[in-house]
């Protein structure tokens, strides 16, 4: 469909979101707990946090939960009964308050899970998810979306994009039929508009020039010595991977007894020492050096080669979350320079 334009006041936006919850659709939006912000199930729209920066945890769990039951099994006399999870029962959800980088990430994450054999759980959740994003008026020192294939006013992956345009008012872009469908119920709350230039209301994001040729350089940098110093302070936790909107590694765990239990899919992280530990005891990634290299290679070399885009949208969450200040912007700049230096004739 062609993009439809509208104008909406902040007050009416809250009414619209209240209407969504009242109408029986599940609403997820940022909510503040202490200093951290999470996408939570919202029943009272007054709880929504309109913080200018991306949330602490990404909205990834809305498509790819940190743990989900794939099937359960139980012994039934001589036979074993297996109950498959039914993806058809997944409810329609509205996700509000995603930033453009989040929406781009949701689209890339869905593409990843649809590659080859489609993952029906992720696919169905994406199908049922309506994404209403807010353009960014502010970026911080960890953001680099404009160098990672997106931008503060990018509508990719969103069904509706709102840009605060001064005076408690939003310029609204309705980008999909799904977005139009949701809005149809709330016709009185917004006015028709015309395409507006919102660029003056958007954040200025500091470019990350090193990212431009980074993937190509990485292709020849597997054996480089840059990784050791770069990863020395990495503690080997999974904070970066778990706040990342695009990290998609998982681990399948069987839980229960041989006669009754469940098969679960849980988030996993390449930063963990056990991630590649073989049954033999051999670990091809014995230290954080190899694990950090894998993280960077996967996002900026393997993903672009396979999908045509990086496994990173420049949201900056990993940099904000890292207890050892492994700042990704800085790492990319430093690794890029280090690799260039080593490969110079």
């Amino acid at each position, binding site marked *: 469909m062609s993009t439809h334009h509208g104008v909406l006041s902040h007050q009416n936006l809250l009414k619209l979101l209240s209407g969504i919850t009242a109408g029986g659709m599940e609403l997820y939006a940022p909510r503040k707990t202490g200093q951290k912000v999470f996408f939570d199930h919202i029943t009272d729209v007054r709880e929504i946090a309109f913080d200018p920066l991306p949330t602490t*945890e990404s909205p990834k769990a809305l498509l790819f939960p940190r743990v989900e039951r794939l099937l359960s099994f139980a012994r039934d006399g001589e036979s074993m009964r297996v109950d498959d999870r039914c993806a058809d029962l997944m409810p329609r959800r509205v996700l509000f308050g995603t930033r453009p980088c989040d929406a781009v990430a949701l689209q890339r994450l869905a593409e990843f899970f649809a590659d080859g054999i489609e993952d029906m759980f992720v696919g169905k959740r994406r199908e049922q998810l309506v994404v209403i994003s807010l353009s960014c008026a502010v970026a911080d020192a960890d953001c680099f979306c404009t160098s990672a294939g997106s931008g503060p006013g990018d509508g990719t992956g969103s069904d509706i994009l709102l840009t605060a345009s001064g005076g408690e008012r939003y310029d609204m872009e309705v980008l999909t039929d799904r977005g139009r469908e949701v809005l149809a119920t709330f016709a009185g709350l917004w006015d028709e508009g015309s395409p507006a230039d919102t660029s003056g209301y958007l954040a200025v994001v500091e470019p990350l020039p090193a990212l431009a040729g980074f993937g190509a350089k990485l292709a020849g940098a597997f054996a480089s010595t840059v990784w050791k110093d770069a990863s020395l302070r990495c503690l080997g936790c999974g904070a970066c991977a778990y706040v990342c909107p695009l990290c998609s590694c998982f681990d399948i765990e069987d839980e229960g007894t041989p006669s009754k239990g469940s098969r679960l899919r*849980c988030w996993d992280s390449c930063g963990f020492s056990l991630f590649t530990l073989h049954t033999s005891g051999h670990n091809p990634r014995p230290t954080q050096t190899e694990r950090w290299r894998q993280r960077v290679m996967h996002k900026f070399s393997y993903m672009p080669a396979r999908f045509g885009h990086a496994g990173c949208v420049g949201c900056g969450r990993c940099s904000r979350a890292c207890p050892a200040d492994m700042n990704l912007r800085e790492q990319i700049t430093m690794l890029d320079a280090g690799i260039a230096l080593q490969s110079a004739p």
Partner: protein
Amino acid sequence: MSALQVQAGELLASGKAEVVIGYGEGTRGRVRPVFVRTRADVSLLVFDGRCTANLTVYLAKPEVGRMGKAAIVATPGAVRSLIQLIAEHQVDPGEVVVLAADDDAVTLLTDPAALEAYAAAHPVTIPPEAKAVTESLARMSAQERRAFWDAELSRCFKCYACRSACALCYCTRCITDMNQPQWVCVAPHALGVMEWHLNRAMHMAGRCVQCGSCTSACPAGIPIGLLAMEASRSVEKEFGAQAGLRCDAPPALSSFAADDRESFIL
């Protein structure tokens, strides 16, 4: 040049240390761990109120171990964790030199007696916000406390930053990573999360030095250090044993005295 930089430079120049593990300027006004190997690089070292992460955690990393004998910039909490690591035979006191830093003073500690004297004279400061939560928890009923932890732990996605940032979580294979048999639910659902944190608290009981690194490391802002802290306080109350004060202290919960007042011991 600060006193810390001078001392670090002397240690590197004299060969008493091959690497100084300290704090340097990071991004966003934060400090970060730095590994200084040459005298020219000691200018990277800083120490101020932002330096709270416990750097002794790096002693267990093989790639750091291969850098040679280490000198470590240590807060009072880190000094205690080092003492505890020595008591648990994880660190040979001859293998590490300590630059104990507290406000403006830097003290070079090279033997167990000096470490113990320093720890005795420098109590660990508990941040006011942690104190406030502890006090409010103490006023709660068991049911309210359970509700508090259920809500806090609902944010935990098991990234194990708490474990990774803890100097005393040095197991090469943690109990939660065991799968044959599986002792703790690996999944990050409510039960799995609770099992993990209670296991860690019990494992830290009598060993936690209250450095606060686990709480600072948590990306979800959970005051997770309070569990181990409370478990350690119980051990202190029941057995009179405080972690991180003596290099030859037997572990409170894995040793026994034949003359113990409890009849069930023998």
